């Protein structure tokens, strides 16, 4: 296999075996097509037809701080793990090994001191019949590696940013993140993919998150890329007793964005929180797939996805909640609200419940509608121009998800992006 020459791993290692098995799995299942029920509304044809470069010319990626400064969270001290064209950039990064490992997956693969951790966690929950995750595993070589040891509250948020530069041709990147948070520890993570290129970019990202007992993780995904970039983001979360994990997905940019988010509850009294905002226009396409597997009793899950679709954009929401027979006393809530702003925009929503236990309280709801005409009239009567009035109402529609953000500067940033997307200055300073 050609990629072996490029990958920096000895061909006889355990790691190599994992990758070879993943490659075999990919060769077996291939890329998903619309015939696959989970891909019914999203076609990858338009982005898979490009002739992507898998291993870009390493000498060409030059990024200066001023040109990317805007993509970082400012006004807050943070750890940063920055990659340019899939390669770690130490100049822009700020990592640590002080009581915790906030570093690189390549280091974790190569160094023997990480072997136990890697054997225990790497690719343990990403096993899937989905071809794209297998492809990522087969090529996995770089990404963020975060291991927070017991009883540490990480005060500074961690930023993981992937830049793509204006390199010679279309590029396919396959970042792989591994995040492990041990007992009683807490961490906040912000992930972002940003293209600086005018060529097509496809990111096929896989992230595995492990929350051990009583761990708290807040994960934020900012998806506000250029229109020549597409993102396939697959995230797996495994939780142990009394842990709380929230994954917040903000999809504003990009051509095709596909988020697959799976939660596995492997203990009791777990809380899983899934939040999302999709605000898109033009011919953008956002597909959110969520799976919550309730596998132990006395757990909760709360899911809230809001979508606003303008222009000829398409939104997909496919939410599944599985409650296994043993998972008594489960509380699972799922809500998907959508607003279509034009007749050319489309929404496909599929909120699903599969329940095998009787003593549960599960509900799901889905709404599709428009802005309240009376509210709009009321505001215009009081001198607020139509555009601003609409924007205010739309902002209010997304507010519940924005309010859940626990990093103040991030909340401001998201609010700014929303007002930019709506084409107005909301004048809200948070």
């Amino acid at each position: 296999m050609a990629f072996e020459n490029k990958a920096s791993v000895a061909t006889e290692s355990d790691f190599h075996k994992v990758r070879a098995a993943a490659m075999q799995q990919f060769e077996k299942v291939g890329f998903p097509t619309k015939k696959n029920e989970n891909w019914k509304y999203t076609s990858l044809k338009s982005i898979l037809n490009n002739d992507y470069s898998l291993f870009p010319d390493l000498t060409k990626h030059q990024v200066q701080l001023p040109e990317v400064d805007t993509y970082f969270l400012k006004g807050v001290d943070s750890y940063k793990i920055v990659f340019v064209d899939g390669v770690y950039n130490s100049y822009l990064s700020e990592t640590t090994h002080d009581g915790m490992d906030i570093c690189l997956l390549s280091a974790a693969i190569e160094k023997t001191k990480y072997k136990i951790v890697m054997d225990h966690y790497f690719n343990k929950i990403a096993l899937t019949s989905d071809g794209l995750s297998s492809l990522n595993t087969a090529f996995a070589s770089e990404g963020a590696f975060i291991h927070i040891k017991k009883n540490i509250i990480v005060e500074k948020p961690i930023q993981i940013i992937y830049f793509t530069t204006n390199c010679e041709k279309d590029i396919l990147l396959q970042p792989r993140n591994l995040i492990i948070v041990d007992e009683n520890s807490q961490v906040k993570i912000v992930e972002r993919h940003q293209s600086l290129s005018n060529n097509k970019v496809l990111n096929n990202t896989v992230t595995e998150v492990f929350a051990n007992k009583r761990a708290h993780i807040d994960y934020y995904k900012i998806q506000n890329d250029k229109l020549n970039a597409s993102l396939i983001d697959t995230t797996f979360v495994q939780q142990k007793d009394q842990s709380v994990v929230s994954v917040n997905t903000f999809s504003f940019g990009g051509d095709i964005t596909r988020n697959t988010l799976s939660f596995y509850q492997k203990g009791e009294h777990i809380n899983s929180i899934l939040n999302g905002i999709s605000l898109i226009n033009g011919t953008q396409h956002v597909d959110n797939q969520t799976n919550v597997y309730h596998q132990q009793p006395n757990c909760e899950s709360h899911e809230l996805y809001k979508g606003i679709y303008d222009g000829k954009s398409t939104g997909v929401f496919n939410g599944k909640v599985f409650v296994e027979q043993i998972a008594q006393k489960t509380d699972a809530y799922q809500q998907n609200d959508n607003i279509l702003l034009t007749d050319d925009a489309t929404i496909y929503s599929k909120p699903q419940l599969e329940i095998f236990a009787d003593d549960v309280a599960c509900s799901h709801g889905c709404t599709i509608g428009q802005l309240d005409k009376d509210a709009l009239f009321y505001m215009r009567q009081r001198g607020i121009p139509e555009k601003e009035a609409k924007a205010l109402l739309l902002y209010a529609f997304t507010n519940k998800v924005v309010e859940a953000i626990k990093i103040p500067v991030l909340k401001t940033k998201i609010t700014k992006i929303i007002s930019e997307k709506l084409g107005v200055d909301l004048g809200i300073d948070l």
Partner: protein
Amino acid sequence: MSKKYTENELEIDLKDKEYEYGFYTDIESDKFPIGLDEDVVRAISKKKNEPKWMTDWRLKAFRIWQKMEEPDWANVNYVKPDFQAISYYAAPKQKKQLDSLDDVDPELLKTFEKLGISIEEQKKLSGVAMDIVIDSVSVATTFKKTLNEKGILFCPISEAIEKYPDLVQKYIGSVVPRTDNFYAALNSAVFSDGSFCYIPKGVRCPVELSTYFRINEGGTGQFERTLLIADKGAYVSYLEGCTAPQRDENQLHAAVVEIVVHDNAEIKYSTVQNWYPGDKDGLGGVYNFVTKRAIAYDNAKISWTQVETGSAVTWKYPSCILKGDNSIGEFFSIAVTNMHQQADTGTKMIHLGNNTKSTIISKGVSAGFSQNSYRGLVRVGKNAKNARNFSQCDSLLMGNDCGAHTFPYIEVKNASAQIEHEATTSKIGEDQLFYCNQRGLDTEKAIALIVNGFSKEVLNKLPMEFAVEAQKLLEISLEGSVG
């Protein structure tokens, strides 16, 4: 389910009498040898004295069916029927048309009595005209006169093919095309009989039309075909109910119901389905794979109400195509599954016209080892302005070995649509049970009471006679599920 079942076991099971209506009428029947090929299709057509266009229509359907594969996307598991091991035609050996009840085979009359349907009583008291179907051939039709006066055509479809070929030719396959799905294609090729009803312009049908279906002959597939047409401004309430005798092998039922509702017309279609659900180990029982669909034109209204308590496997999605402006579609359903029953049922609401409205109320009750799924589609087309949909799916779980699933599909392409969907799953509250127990109701009665309350919204939509029967059925189906 895969292993065969012996006579002795049947004997023991019959003693247990789980299925109240599980008996078998001994009528000599005129039955085709098993298997399906072009000749069988031709023979069915010939037996019915059908014109050439009908024979050709069936043959074309058969060729379409040959190329199709049995679907497996539904959330049910069963041993797929062997289509070459079924006899495709069985009719009681009665050649001549009957004018009065006296001519009916006394054995048959006894069967009806056991079912609790005395035709005389029905005739006198309830004012319901009945087209009783036993193994595919209609044997008694009442109230013909009243209907004739109004110009309403209500007869077996085989008769309609003979008498009103223009109407049948115009409408058959117009709502459910032969290419629609595997079972619809099979039904189109081999349907034995069914009902045909045409309500002329501006006529309000004075009686509730009802047909009782019964599957009587062991190893016979039932392929009913129903065609209902309400012309402009007409109204009819149509009831369909069924019970099947206990048999030791799975029986296949693949019916097609097509409904056309013209401008300003209204059709109310109610079903109570209580086919043999199989025994307590999941052996036997009816496979119910039905395609039901209605098309509504301007200002028309179609309302489906169903109470599903029977069948081992149910696969059924009564649908509404809201083609005309201001048309309305409604779907009210209760599906109760117990023992090893599996139901995958729901509806499709396709909004095409402007200002269309649809309402979906679906109640699922699962007990025992059963699996109960709601699968529904709400689609709003690009040019359908101001579409409105409200969906509510509630599931009740009884016991820890059953499952309740919800698979709603919502596809909207117009910004003016307003769609709401909500679903809940829960169990019967212990405090509710305690409250009933405290007041002297035993747990079984209390559950029946609570389930009835849970289903009230749907039961209220049924015509009176059926509401009573349906309530009883809910109780019978949930017997022994306490624990």
